[in-house]
């Protein structure tokens, strides 16, 4: 494996994913890194950065600190800043060099918590995995650390949390709000949305929900943790198009009633001969493929270039992370729905339906990202 990308970019990394997940919750995220991760995150992976006061900082790790294993300096600096800024929690996130020298993030977090009295956790991100890993780590930490057992009688009716919302997948085009409105409009009370448009207090009350709606693969680990801890089932999918949204709604009701989790876009049916493919994060791509088929009868395969376990992949979908693999498996498709920066690996004559994705092309096409929950049909007309 040559691990090369000659023509296409890389996805946002786990470090960005973790910071993005926690961005709106009033905590302080510290990237334990020399320099680069911070400007990459702030420039390309965080469209909320300008003028906001969310506390994301870098430790400015140096070679000598890494060689000498000077963790005490990191602990002191985090404590000093926390004392000044009073965050609600502290997340300490790793990068490549701390991974290589075996930095013990949970131990550092415990030290910081002891020193500051502020809830702290360490996330072993290392810049060698995609943003989805980072989001999963961050949301799982929230689930384990902050979500409280609901008081007797606090739970009732059909209620939900939305888990897996970050601008990396949902942009700032109103899609996150549309998912919330779709639930409310269908009589499902939203307890919290992880983590766009909710406070840490909302997250704390998440166990009151009767079901969790997982809208990206980054929400899976938290959903599983909440299932294990509180028994809350989850349903995976994004409401795109009337037919798939109808199925999703029905699955939410079923899951809430039975306690059984459902991946809505995975049908159990075998794969169909498809001349179209969707490339992207599995929950989004799976939901689009299902919705396109449900609306038009035209099957579309899913190509997942990111982390994903088999249970969340529809039949016939392909896991392909390497540029060569992606180019090879695109060989026979007439239509590809993907971020515009996949164009160079699409076969000659293939039609690319652009669907910009911030986690891939950053801010380059962010003005053109459609809100597929609010209006799936304008997009469908382009396919």
């Amino acid at each position, binding site marked *: 494996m040559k691990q090369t990308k000659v023509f296409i970019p890389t996805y946002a990394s786990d470090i960005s994913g973790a910071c993005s997940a926690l961005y709106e919750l009033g905590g302080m995220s510290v990237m334990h890194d020399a320099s680069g991760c911070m400007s990459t995150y702030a420039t390309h*992976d965080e469209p909320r950065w300008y003028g906001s006061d969310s506390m994301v900082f870098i430790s400015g790790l140096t070679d000598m600190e890494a060689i000498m294993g000077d963790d005490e300096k990191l602990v002191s600096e985090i404590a000093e800043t926390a004392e000044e800024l009073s965050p609600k929690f502290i997340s300490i996130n790793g990068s490549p060099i701390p991974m290589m020298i075996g930095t013990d993030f949970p131990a550092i977090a415990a030290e910081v918590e002891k020193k500051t009295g502020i809830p702290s956790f360490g996330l072993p991100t290392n810049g060698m995995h995609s943003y989805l890993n980072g989001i999963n780590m961050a949301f799982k930490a929230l689930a384990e650390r902050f979500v409280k057992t609901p008081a007797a009688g606090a739970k009732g009716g059909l209620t939900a949390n939305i888990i897996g919302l970050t601008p990396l997948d949902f942009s700032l085009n109103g899609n996150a709000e549309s998912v919330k409105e779709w639930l409310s409009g269908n009589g499902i009370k939203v307890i919290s949305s992880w983590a766009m448009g909710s406070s840490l207090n909302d997250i704390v009350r998440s166990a009151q929900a009767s079901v969790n709606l997982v809208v990206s693969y980054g929400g899976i680990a938290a959903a599983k943790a909440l299932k294990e801890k509180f028994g809350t089932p989850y349903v995976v999918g994004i409401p795109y198009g009337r037919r798939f949204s109808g199925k999703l709604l029905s699955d939410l009701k079923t899951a809430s009633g039975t306690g059984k989790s459902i991946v809505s876009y995975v049908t159990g049916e075998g794969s169909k001969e498809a001349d179209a493919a969707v490339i992207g994060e599995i929950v989004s791509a799976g939901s689009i493929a299902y919705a396109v088929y449900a609306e038009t009868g035209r099957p579309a395969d899913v190509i997942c270039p990111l982390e994903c376990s088999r249970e969340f992949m529809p039949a016939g979908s392909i896991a392909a992370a390497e540029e060569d693999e992606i180019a090879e498996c695109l060989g026979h498709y007439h239509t590809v729905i993907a971020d515009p920066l996949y164009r160079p690996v699409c076969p000659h004559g293939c039609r690319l339906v652009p669907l910009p994705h911030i986690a891939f092309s950053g801010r380059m096409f962010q003005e053109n990202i459609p809100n597929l929950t609010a209006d799936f049909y304008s997009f469908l007309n382009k396919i």
Partner: protein
Amino acid sequence: MLKQIHGECGIQPACVAVRDAKFPKPFLQQPGLEFSSPARGVWNIVHIGMLLPQAHLIFVCPEGCLRGVVQTADEMNASGRLSTIDVRENNVLEGNIEKMMVDGVSDIIGKLPQKPPAVLIYASCTHHFIGCDLTVVYKALGKKFPDIAFGDCYMNPIMRKTGLTPEQLMRRQLYKLLQPREFDTKSVNIIGNCNRTDESSELVRLIRESGYGLKDIVLCKTYGEYLKMAESPLNITMLPIAHAAGVALQRRLSQKHVYLPLSYLYKDIEDNLNRLSDILHVPERNYSKNIAHAESSLHKAKKIIGNCPVAIDYTATPRPLSLARLLCEHGFAVARIYADEFSGEEKDDFLWLKEHCPEIEVCAVTDPRMRVAPNCTDGKVLAVGQKAAYFTGTDNFVNMVEGGGMYGFDGISRLAGLMADAFLHEKDTRKLIQIKGLGCNCCL
């Protein structure tokens, strides 16, 4: 004096009056954690590498580090000139990074539509920490591709406090592919700049009017033109960040290096120009008319700008204190200077400001408190530089980095004009300062 509007949190920006500031680190306590403001106009190692005409850039780093450089190239519409090799956990554990680099670079070259004359390979912090033998890598690649020149470049910010910073290192390595050539005694290079030095500057005019040809990588269109830079017996640097490049070329190619630092003080400018005259073996020039023009431009600008507070940051010019001194000497109301640290060259200017303008505030840039301090002031502010514009929240700013190619008395005249224009006409600060690499192509 410029007043900050305090937000509900009541957190003050990290500022100190210049009378209480230390040199070269103005703040008593250096911040541990760092904030990154959204001003992105300063060129990074991708922008600088792209100055090498027809070269292909290959970054060998973990995914998290690759993301920023790939996006830089994409936003420059130059994705076809940059490829990546992704360092993964197994490479760190198995110790096969040398083979992975050789295989990866070979794979990339084989897939490019045209074989490039030069390839810049950027190794990362991980290479240093696992003791990667880069010599073996370059030797193998040189054998495999004898018609391609490979340049070793580095993206190792973890080493930024040990020896050269990544920015200094990049500017040095950019000229590493130059090979000894017979000198053309009528040729001069300017090296280490990302901005083209103004043709109207006294420095460029002195070179050209003395019958010398001027070479600068920012003017090169082909790799061949770049290689011809080795024919100049003289390299001029003017930025502290470029100094190491001049020293290295003097040692390697015997090109004389002269450092003529950017300054806003008339005496320094005149000394620099006279020094160059001496090196070029031409008579010293009389600059009284140039000085008069600079004075007149400053006077005109002052009439327009009046007592509006002026804020300057260290990305606009490597000599913010020198600029502040010039402006104060001409009656401008310099209120704030944004910098975490000053260049050693600025000591005289620092002492002058301390004595004559002790109320000027020096504000930190990366201190975490700057994240939560409100980005607004209670009146109009004129900023010189993107970070000053961001932190003061003004739309009246001079959009420039690294001195903007302005040099000498002519540079002062031009800057005064830009300040007056910025005072009169607002810009879209939010949009402009987030664009990476001011002056590069950008698709945003």
